[in-house]
Each structure stands twice: as structure tokens, then as C-alpha cells.
């Protein structure tokens, strides 16, 4: 049943409303919903009189503001807040103060239980917990002066992924795909891999929020190894693709009529895109996620762990032109028993990530793929005061380390400094907004100009802040 003909006086659309609707409708029908966003990147003029233009998918590759160094991003999220003073940011002063109070800080210092060693040609000191990553140090840019606003996991995790402390802002990956489109039209532009259930903050971390739904991250649980379980319902057991295409065309035709009666609700358009993507994924994603197709040498290189599995998938996705891959590699919340627990966690990612960087380099993908590893904040130089015998460290939003590789980042450098004890970033400080601005800059975007108009305001990833950290860019 369409809307009733009964109308209340004054409620009916005016002449100009029809005009506007029709124009908008033509615009959308031809180019998909994301065309509106594209217009705001290229400037409104670009689209004036383009009703005859060839259809453009909202995921089609788009030009950048300036020449890009990186084309793709892999963000490995070390959720839980890894201790920087035990991994990437050596603090010999902690050993001298071990068990003694540190000036201006509550509690007593805790020396790192781990040795740091100079590695590579650059001679950067890396903790023994990362033996293989340490060997790769000449490929890395280690930012030692990260800081963020709130030392609570859920808030800070979502903040790192969306630049927003409040709910509902688009995630970094959604912004990137909105800005750049994606290279492979048969795969989602943004895929989020997680080794199990939803992480803290859940879908907020890969949401598109007010950006069109096609930029939403597609979340995949990687605990399974079979492709049918990785992407549930990826295959239709009843009829071949050709027949499914015919069926889906009918569904689209029916949906188009339904959508007309509701005048193109954004949700309904997003649903249409989701069905098309789902259809295409049936061929492309089955291949991308099929690890059985990897030669045995790959497993030797990456190891045989959950994170190895995730990073092999990530590499297969990058090879297939997926724009942004988020990889959840959490479990770093070491309030106690840091000496035993932290190396275990580090060991999970050390070999796979080192292998991943090597592998990308061999395939000549590293130069155009920005790899980011880091958590949502860091940890305190003092012992956690939860009163147990196996100490750990408490939350610290004033200092942490984030590591970049490839994609136009500098090689074999450290950037910024924390204070003598690692309590706070003090030199060349890099805020989360600055990191976001820098990632966008490496991708060829001015973070102040990558905006989306919503509710009468231009929004951007970096809110009203963010400075590009040129010191980490090659």
C-alpha cells in the first residue's frame, strides 16, 4: 500500500519539493548515494550538470587532495594499552629508582623486567619481548610521544578509532574509504578482523555513523579457518550464482518500487548496496579468505597462531585492493603479572607482524601500504597499586608508543620523547588527532578538508584539532 491520498491542509509537498526530490533522485539513481559525499570533496561545481554522467559507485577510486604516498592502510590495534616502557620506550632511570618513589608521582617505580637492545643499522633500542620486530627496526618509525585524553579502555579505544569521545562519529577506516573509494569493487573497502567476540566498544570502532552505510567496516571473526565459517552464509547451497543473480535482480526491482514510496530512505539505499556487495563477495571473498590457498612457506614465515592467521588474511586483502584493514590484536591490559603476561602477548604478534612487513616488502606492497601498530593509551612507570605480589602497571593516557611502517612513513627512526621515567610525553608530542591527521596526509588528504556535511555542519575526523606530524613522513 502506498501512502494514503488523504492529506491534511498544508502538509502536502510544494511544487519546489517535487523539483528538489526529483533532482536528488536522479542524482542518486545515477550515481549511488555516496555521490553526495564525493561532491563535497571535489567541490560542488564538479557535479553541476552531471546528470548524464556515467554511473559512479560510491566505492569507485577517487582523487586525493595531493599526491599520496600510501594507498592502503593496515591498522593493528593493540587494545588494552601496551606498556610503552617495556616495549618501545626504554627508561633506564626506572631501574635506578626501582621500588623507590618517583618525584611528582604516586607510588613506586617499577623497573622494566625486560632488557632493551640496540637493533639494526639505526641502533634503536627495542625490548627483548619483540625479538623479530626488533630485527625489522630499520623499517619502522616509532612514535614515542603519543598521548590521548581519557585513560579508560572503552572510551579511549573508540577515540583512537573515531577521533571522538562521544558516540557516533565515523571511524578512521570509514573516512578513508569515503575519501578514497576502493580499488576492488567486489570487496568491501573496509574490513575489520577480530580473533573472537566483539572488542570493547564493538561496532563503534568500525562504524560509518553519519557517513553512508557503504563505508561501514565489515567485521569478520577470524577464529575459524574455513571460509564458510569466516564469512557465514558466503555460499548458497541451493542454486548457482547465475540463478542467484536473476533472483537478486528481482529483489532489486521490488526494492526500488518500495523505496520510491518511501522516497529513497538512506537506510534502504544502504541496504541495496549491502546486497550488491554481498553478491560480489561470494566470489571474491571466498578466495580472499581461503587460507588453504596459501603455500606452506607462508605459515613458516608467519607462524601458526591467531595473529598469524589474521595477518595472512590481511595481506590477502591488501593484495586484492581492500583499502583499509583493521586487525584486532588486544589483551595488553597488564595490571598485574606483567613479567609473565606481557611477553606472551608480545610473542603473539612479534613473528606475524615482522613476517607481514617482510612479506609486503617482497611483494612490493610496503611502499604503498601504511602499517600502524598501537594501543589506545600507555601505562604508568610505577607499580599498579592493586596490591598483589606480581606487579603490573596502571593506565596512563599521557604517554604511549605507536609504530608505523611503510606507506610513506620514515624508516628506522624514533620520534618524540617521554620524560625520564616515561610518565608523560614531553617533546614533539603527538595527540591522537595528530596521528589521524598524519595518516590522512600520507594518503594524500588535508584532514581539514576531508569533510562531510551532516545536520548542517561540516564534520571531519580530527574535529577542530590535529597537526600533521611531518617528522615521521619520508
Amino acid at each position, binding site marked *: *500500500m502506498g501512502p494514503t491520498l488523504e492529506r491534511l491542509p498544508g502538509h502536502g509537498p510544494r511544487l519546489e519539493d517535487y523539483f528538489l526530490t526529483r533532482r536528488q533522485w536522479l542524482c542518486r539513481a545515477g550515481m549511488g548515494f555516496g555521490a553526495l559525499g564525493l561532491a563535497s570533496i571535489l567541490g560542488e561545481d564538479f557535479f553541476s550538470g552531471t546528470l548524464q554522467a556515467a554511473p559512479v559507485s560510491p566505492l569507485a577510486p577517487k582523487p586525493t587532495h595531493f599526491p599520496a604516498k600510501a594507498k592502503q592502510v593496515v591498522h593493528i590495534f593493540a587494545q588494552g594499552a601496551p606498556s610503552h616502557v617495556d616495549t618501545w620506550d626504554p627508561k633506564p632511570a626506572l631501574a635506578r629508582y626501582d621500588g623507590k618513589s618517583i618525584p611528582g608521582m604516586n607510588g613506586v617505580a617499577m623497573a622494566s623486567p625486560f632488557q632493551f637492545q640496540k637493533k639494526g643499522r639505526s641502533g634503536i633500542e627495542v625490548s627483548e619481548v619483540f625479538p623479530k620486530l626488533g630485527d625489522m627496526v630499520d623499517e619502522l618509525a616509532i612514535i614515542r610521544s603519543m598521548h590521548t585524553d581519557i585513560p579508560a579502555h572503552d572510551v579511549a579505544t573508540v577515540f583512537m578509532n573515531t577521533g571522538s569521545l562521544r*558516540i557516533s562519529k565515523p571511524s578512521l577506516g570509514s573516512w578513508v574509504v569515503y575519501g578514497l573509494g576502493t580499488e576492488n569493487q567486489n570487496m568491501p573497502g573496509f574490513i575489520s578482523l577480530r580473533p573472537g*567476540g566483539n572488542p570493547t566498544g564493538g561496532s563503534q570502532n568500525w562504524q560509518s555513523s553519519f557517513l553512508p552505510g557503504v563505508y561501514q567496516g565489515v567485521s569478520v571473526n577470524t577464529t575459524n579457518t574455513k571460509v564458510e565459517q569466516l564469512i557465514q552464509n558466503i555460499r548458497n547451497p541451493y542454486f548457482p550464482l547465475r540463478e542467484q543473480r536473476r533472483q537478486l535482480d528481482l529483489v532489486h526491482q521490488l526494492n526500488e518500487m518500495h523505496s520510491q514510496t518511501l522516497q529513497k530512505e538512506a537506510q534502504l539505499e544502504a541496504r541495496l548496496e549491502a546486497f550488491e556487495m554481498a553478491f560480489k563477495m561470494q566470489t571474491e571473498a571466498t578466495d580472499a579468505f581461503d587460507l588453504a590457498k596459501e603455500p606452506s612457506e607462508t605459515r613458516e614465515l608467519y607462524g601458526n597462531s591467531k595473529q598469524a592467521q589474521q595477518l595472512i588474511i590481511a595481506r590477502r586483502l591488501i593484495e586484492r585492493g581492500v583499502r583499509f584493514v583493521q586487525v584486532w590484536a588486544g589483551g595488553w591490559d597488564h595490571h598485574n603479572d606483567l613479567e609473565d603476561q606481557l611477553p606472551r602477548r608480545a610473542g603473539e604478534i612479534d613473528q606475524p607482524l615482522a613476517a607481514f612487513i617482510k612479506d609486503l616488502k617482497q611483494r612490493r606492497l610496503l611502499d604503498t601500504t601504511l602499517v600502524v601498530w598501537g594501543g589506545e593509551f600507555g601505562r604508568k612507570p610505577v607499580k599498579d597499586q592493586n596490591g598483589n605480589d606480581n606487579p603490573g602497571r596502571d593506565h596512563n593516557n599521557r604517554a604511549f608508543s605507536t609504530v608505523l611502517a611503510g606507506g610513506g612513513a620514515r624508516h628506522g627512526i624514533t620520534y618524540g620523547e617521554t620524560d625520564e621515567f616515561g610518565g608523560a610525553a614531553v617533546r614533539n608530542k603527538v*595527540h591522537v588527532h595528530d596521528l589521524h591527521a598524519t595518516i590522512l596526509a600520507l594518503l594524500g588528504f588535508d584532514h581539514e578538508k576531508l569533510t562531510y556535511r551532516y545536520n548542517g555542519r561540516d564534520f571531519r575526523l580530527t574535529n577542530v584539532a590535529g597537526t600533521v606530524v611531518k617528522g615521521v613522513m619520508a
Partner: protein
Amino acid sequence: MSWVTRGVGMALGTWTALAAGHVEAASLTKAQTDFFEANVRPVLARHCYKCHSRDSEKVKGNLLLDTRQGVLRGGETGPAIVPGNPETSLLIKAVRYTDPDLQMPPKGEKLDPAQIASLESWVRMGAPDPREDTASTSAGQGKTDREHWAFQPVKATRPPEVQMREWVANPIDAFILQRLEEKGMKPSPPTDKRTLIRRATFDLAGLPPTPEEVQAFLKDDSTNAYAKVVDRLLKSPRYGERWGRYWLDVARYSDTKGEVRRRLEDVRYPFAWTYRDYVIQSLNNDTPYNQFIIEQIAADKLPSAKTDPTRLAAMGFLTLGNHFNNNRNDIINDRIDVVTKGFLGLTVTCARCHDHMFDPIPTQDYYSLHGIFASSEEPEFEPLLTQPKGNNAEYQDYFAQRSKLAAEQQAMETQYRQLKGTSPAVRKVRRELQNKQTQTLSQIAKLDLNHPGSPPRAMAMQDRAKPADSRVFVRGEADNKGDVAPRRFLEVLSGPRRSEFHNGSGRLELAHAIADPRNPMTARVIVNRVWQHHFGQGFVSTPDDLGTQSEPPSHAGLIDYLAAELVAKGWSLKQLHRQIMLSNTYRQSSAANPRYSQIDPNNRLLWRAHVRRLDFEALRDSILAIGGRLDLTMYGQPAELEREPYSTRRSVYGYIDRNKIPEVMNHFDFANPDMPTGKRYETIVPQQALFLMNSPLVVEQAKSLVHRPQFDALTEDDSRVEWLYERVVQRPPRPEELALGLTFVADFAEPDQDAVGTEVATDSKEKRKEGRRKPGSGRRKPLTAWEEYAHALFQTSEVSFVH
């Protein structure tokens, strides 16, 4: 581990990167704040903060421009501005570049004339500035926080006067219309009868109406035809299943414990389902909401529990959260969280380590509640809801098996405790024992959970023998004790002279304080939740946080009117539903209006009905219902939803493991059972499409639909299409839809057996295989034309949306 959840309270929008609530800033008008945010802050942030903010590497001239205090205090050369007087303000002088010795920003990066003009206007306005020096923020103790609307008593508002009086069916409409008329807008016309009964049935039952129900409504010309539909739906047991699930989201319901020490306890809650059943039953019985509150917090303290032990199941609300590896303070924190967010719409757990940053909730209040829950405990054995009959064979079997396992477990535990030393031999024995114990506990829990003779038990609480106040944990640290926090209610809701709780733990007194009609939050919070599920969004868009960081309500008068009505009508939720659904506001069409979309893009003023995606439960249940396979058995031990052979019971009866939510439910934004969730996200992702396109659960329902005898009896293709439309989308097809359907069926080519694969099963083979086949694997018998057509209809947007 205790930090893991400390921040949970802040997750839902209580933080802001911009201005925080505080004393003087709160006196600014919205226009002043808006001007500052739009024109001043961006200029300062972009051009000045680099050298003049707390985050500057080196603050130049000792001048801070990132707080109001900093601007007024000024730097080495004096105050940066003189409010009201741009001509004597140094900041203005500097940005004008008129004085060669005072030019900012430096190095010729002069601001645009427009930016300079903005700064001048701002100073002329008196420099309204919402920014606060965080160091001087007195952590939520400000007077203005207390003036927040939600902390004020509910006002018994009279419906406002409006122009279009003929549209007002009940007072709700007057409130809605008033806001629309303010903006020069009119409500949408009423929707048609088919859309209305579909909307109402999904809203109350979570299912589509049957063709018979639709026909009956269409034929009924009486003036109260629609009211009869609403009343029928409110009486239906489906109502409690639909709305019970919403409450289970708030109650962070799960059948498992999350983090546990596996030698000592199994991960399952074998009796969580008795709480789920309590919720469904209470809603179906229209249990007064105040009683619903009190039972969930303190049923054990009520006289009624003595005569009716089934009430004890209510306390699952408190007890079935995550076990956090038995970290007692985290468990207590989770209980404070569910009680305060769930009933009060307050993020009290933000005050665990420090006073609440935005709401007037001091840490001491948090520890007042901490003392109440620290003085409560789960009884060693969950109380029986009904006495099992000793001569029942199933019970005897259960009892025999369980006694044997319990004895084994006991023996192993004794042995474990006697082990001494750390020699490799001892360690090996210890490890083996641990594994065996874990297995035995798991067998016991499975027996309790699944055995038909396992008698239902309540996930109850009781008071500890010696209730005691807690002391404040300074910075949230358990071994850093501060002042005693007497057990009592929140100061902001009950005044500084509130009395202390002395009845045991104080849970019953807490429950009464929450359910007190004078409590300003309780009725507003539930009214907001109910409204949200009828309209897609609440008066306040953050249902679990009505504190100072929430947006002001879209209709302040109406939320108060409904809250007062709720109390006056004996806290009856069904009366509230009825009143909402009989309003003209609810009955509006969802048709778009581009002009109104410009004025109010999010439809906050309710000028039309929202278009809403069905949640997972409603979608799955309706597909089963349309296929004619929905099993309406109510209550009892949970059903396995994920694996074939699929249970066809309603989704609310599914087994929920908080550590392993079925992926398909994640893809449809199922609520995270680790925190109270008043509002689910609503994403649209390809995996949702894959579920509808390929899941055997869906395809089998389409097959079932066209194998019903009624369908077979129809010989004309036209009538077959019509019959399917009435069932799948509850309306007849439009001519063009009919034509498309006929063409689709006519063009169907018999499947090429080779193209489908060699494993094509015959019917009987298929049936034998069904039980052990994993989803998505293997080929199945190809669909017929009509099966495939019905399946196509299941995938249309109309099935997944209500409008």
C-alpha cells in the same frame, strides 16, 4: 584486571572533547555558546593553541588561550581581553596587526578579516566562553549541575494549547503538535490500515500480523477498530516476549558468566533463563513497574517471596552479569552499573575512581551503593522455584546423575587442597586434577541447564550475616581506603539529609528509593525507553544516560506528562503503550517530506513515522512465522539457535553466551551482554544480506511456505503471487509487482544438474543429512521456481523494515 570495566560508565556519550559542564559556563545561552564554538574556538585552536595552550610544547609569553580563565588572566603583558571592549583588548590589537611590536599570529600569518571581525564581535559580546580550566573544575559539585532538568521533580504538565485542535486525539498529540506548530510544520496524514496494523503488531508482538488479522481489521468499520487491535496485542503473550527482550538488553542478560576460574566454577549460568521467564511473565501480567523494580533488586526481602518463591527469580537482574574472574569489586561495579543505568539513567560507575566529571555524583555516593552490594551475596545453593516431586522419574534420573558428579567433584577438590609443594610430579597431578575438575563442573552445569528433570532455581541474592558500610577507594584502588560511605541513596536524588539504610544490606531501601514516585529519574527513564521503542528514538536519545551530558529532551513537557501519568495510573506499562499507540502521532504515515527533511532531518519533532530496520529477533521470528514454522512454546530452558537443526522457537528463548555471541546476531547489532544497552546500533552490512540470501534457515522457510496445502490448492499463478504477498508483506501485490512475479516464475529454467553440482540429494537423502550438515557446506536440492520466488520476497526491504 579491575580497570577493565572502570570506564564502562563513560562509554555512552558522557565525555566530550569540547566544553564540560561547569558553573559559569552553564549560564551562557545556547546562542552564545554556538557563536563561540562556530567562530571563536576554531580560530583560537588553529592559530593560537600551538603556543598558547596547556598542550603547547613551550607556552609563549606565559599566556594560555585554551581556557576562559587563561584568557582573562592573560600573560606577561596583562589580560588578553577586556570583555565588552575590543579597542582596549590586547588580543584584538595583536590580531589586527596595527602595532608592529604586537602582531599575532606571528610571522605574517595574519588572520582573515572575517576571523578578526569574529573575535571583535566576541569580545564586544562580553567574551562568552564555555571553556573551563579543568584543574579548577570541582568535579560535578557545581550548583548548576543540580539544576539539570532531569534532577528536578516531574512537573504535572497540562497539555499545551494548539491551533490544529481537530488533530489532537489525546494529550500526547497536543505536545507533539505544539513543537511542530512552533516551526510552522504540520503532522503527516494517518497511515493506511494495513501499514498501521503491521506497525502495531511488530511494535507489540515483534511479529507480522497474520492475513486473518489483517482482514479482520480491514473489515471492521467500527470507530474503535484500531483500539481493539491494540488491546488484543497487549493481551497477547507475544507482547512479553517482544518487550521482555528489550529489558533483557538493559539487564545485560546472558546464560554464561564470562571470565571464571574454571577449576572452581563452570562458565554457564544454568538458571539464568528463570530470570528471562520472570521478565516475560511480569510484562505479560502488567506487573506495576515500581513492583518490577523492587522485585529485581530485593525480592528476597518481600513478604510475597515467602508465599511465592518464583518472585526470587527477579534478582537475576543483579546476579547474571560477568564474573570478572571473581573480582568482587568488579562484580559489584557491574551491579551498580545495571541498577543505576537501567532504572535511573545515570552513569554512577563513572564515580568509581573520582567524583563524576559531569553529573553531581561524588565518589562517596558510589561507595554508598558499593556497601549495599558488598553486604549482599548469592546463597550457596540457588533457591528452588518449585519443589520437585520425588517420585518423578526424570527428576530421579537427574538427581542420581548430579549427586554422583558432585561427589566426584568434592573428592577431587579435597585431593587438590591436600597437594603440597611444587615438584614436577605434584604440578602434574595438580594440572590433571584441574582439567578433570573443569570437566566435571561442566558436566554438572550441563545437567542443570539441559536435563528435563532439573528443577528450576532462582539466581537470587540474600543479605550477608554482617552488613557493613564500605569505605571510599581512593582513585578506585581497593587497598587505598578513604572515608566511610554510609549505605544510603544518591544525594542528588534524595537530598543532603537523606537517611541511612539499616535494613540488612539496604537493598530493599534502595529499591524503594528508586521506585519512589518522587524520584525524578525513574518514571522519566522508563517512559523514555518505551517511547524509543515505539518511535525509533526517545525524547532523550541516550536512554541509559539522562544526566547532564545528554541532549535536552525533544519534548520536555511530554516526557513529564507521561511520567506523571504512569505513576498516577499505578505504574501500568500497558496503559502507557495504549496511550501512545492511540495517539494520532503514532498513527502518522512515514511518507517523506523534503521540505521538512531540511528543517528537521532526524525527525526529532515527529512530523512523520520513522522507517525502522527490524532487529535480529523480529526478523528471524517473522521469517519463521511467515514460513509457518514458528514454535510458540513459551518459557523454559534455552534453545540452541545457531546450529542445524535450527530451533524454531522465538529468538528470546535462545541461549546467549556472552563470550561467544553467534556471528549472525553480531552482524545484526545484538546488544553487548557486558553492559546495559538501552539502544542497539543499527548498521547495515553485507553479512546481513548474506544471511537472507544464503542461510538455510531462511531458504527452508521459503520452501515451507510454498509447500503449504493452501498454496498447492491454488491453481492460478496470479492467486499464488497474491497469496504469497499477503503472507510475506501483509498486502496484495501492486500490478507491476504481480507482473514481475509472474515473469520471474515463467522464466525459470529447470536447474542444470551439472551446474549445481554432483551432490544433489534426493528428498530422503536430504532429510538424513540435515542433522549433521554445517551451515553453508555442501550442495542441497535445487529450488523450484516458486520456492525461489518466495525466497526472493523474503529478501525484499519491506520484510526487514517497519514504517
